[in-house]
């Protein structure tokens, strides 16, 4: 599922589920009908008696669905009523994942269906501890994390997402690669085109895998700047490994292209992180996109021009 393929089909039917020997006194935990979220929660409740109320979020996880409002006050109230929860349980408490809070107004849920919302921890693995503590979060339970493993697990999605643009760019590069003094040379198209595609791949890997992995250690705050820096280093390694593209012009063109692409791809990674704000991303993009575009255009011009001066 992390690969971003066929995620839409990983759904759980919305409604009320019974875990163990759930009864009138058992807690009610609310989640989204994304199979990953549901399974994560059910795994943690092994050996516990509880109810799980699954909201219809079209298979989308809690946080993203809360941002869109599908994991929201209206849907929650509807599901509570549809399940006739007030007859099943004697208490009036719903435990929600904390990351559902952007979509749910606790006070409105209470006004509309009489149930009190308690926000549980961010991670399902802490939910049992949270309940045993008398519904109190311990330090760390409320903060989102972004560990190296979490960052790296996102790389495949970014890489798969870049395949289609890469295919289009490759077709264009093979065509452009053939342009030269002899108008068009199939041999050149193949050779120079393949070199240019390799440069694009290096840029994508720099922006989608290396930048996320090295994120906390890269200087600056803007993702585009971090990506450009990684791209420049990758370009250096690329040039050192590929002895054929020596000389100033191919060197400059490769560096511009790899860092420009890496910067753009890294900037797109902002959407996958749990700490970037839309205002910040928009500000960053207004500054970075013209620079990224300029470096790509300049790199392409140098690369095409180089064919004529050889």
């Amino acid at each position, binding site marked *: 599922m992390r690969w*971003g393929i066929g*995620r*839409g089909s990983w759904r759980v039917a919305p409604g009320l589920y019974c875990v163990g020997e759930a009864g009138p006194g058992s807690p009610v935990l609310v989640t989204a009908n*994304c199979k990953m979220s549901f399974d994560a929660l059910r795994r943690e409740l092994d050996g516990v008696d509880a109810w799980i109320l699954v909201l219809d979020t079209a*298979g*989308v*996880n809690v946080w*993203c669905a*809360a*941002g*869109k409002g599908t994991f929201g006050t209206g849907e929650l109230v509807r599901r509570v009523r549809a399940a006739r929860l007030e007859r099943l349980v004697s208490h009036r408490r719903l435990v929600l994942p*904390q*990351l559902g*809070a*952007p*979509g*749910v*107004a*606790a*006070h409105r849920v209470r006004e509309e269906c009489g149930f009190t919302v308690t*926000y549980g921890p*961010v991670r399902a693995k802490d939910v049992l501890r949270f309940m045993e503590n008398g519904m109190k*979060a311990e330090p760390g339970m*409320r*903060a*989102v*994390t*972004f560990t190296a493993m979490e960052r790296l697990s996102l790389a495949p999605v970014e890489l798969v997402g870049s395949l289609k643009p890469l295919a289009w760019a490759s077709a264009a590069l093979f065509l452009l690669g053939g342009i030269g003094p002899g108008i068009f040379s199939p041999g050149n198209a193949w050779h120079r085109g393949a070199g240019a595609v390799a440069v694009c791949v290096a840029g994508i890997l720099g922006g989608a895998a290396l930048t996320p992995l090295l*994120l*906390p250690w890269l200087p600056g*705050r*803007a993702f585009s700047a971090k990506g450009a820096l990684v791209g420049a280093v990758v370009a250096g390694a690329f040039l050192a490994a590929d002895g054929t593209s020596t000389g100033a012009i191919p060197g400059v063109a490769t560096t511009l292209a790899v860092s420009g692409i890496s910067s753009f791809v890294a*900037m*797109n990674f*902002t*959407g*996958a*992180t*749990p*700490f*970037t*704000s*839309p*205002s*910040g*991303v*928009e*500000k*960053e*993009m207004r500054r970075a996109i013209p620079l990224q575009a300029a470096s790509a255009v300049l790199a392409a011009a140098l690369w095409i021009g180089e064919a004529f001066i050889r």
Partner: protein
Amino acid sequence: MRGFSYLEGVSTLRLDPGRCNGCGLCEQVCPHDVFSVSGGKAAVVDRDRCMECGACAMNCRPAAISVTPGVGCATAIIGGWISGAKPSCGCA
């Protein structure tokens, strides 16, 4: 999450302490420890950590908090620029 602050001074988060009743919900729901509630009043500890998720404002009953929530996703913002609509993310 410390060390993961994003750009400075851009968050749209605003708190009106005059309206706050000290319920503490903002502190509970914020995934980035932006608030600290003590003595019956909420205070913004570090506005630059805010990612504009909107959880605090959504759950502040007296509407002491305002923030423009949205997705911090470059692809979505480009889409929004092109279509002129509010950015929406293909996040799953």
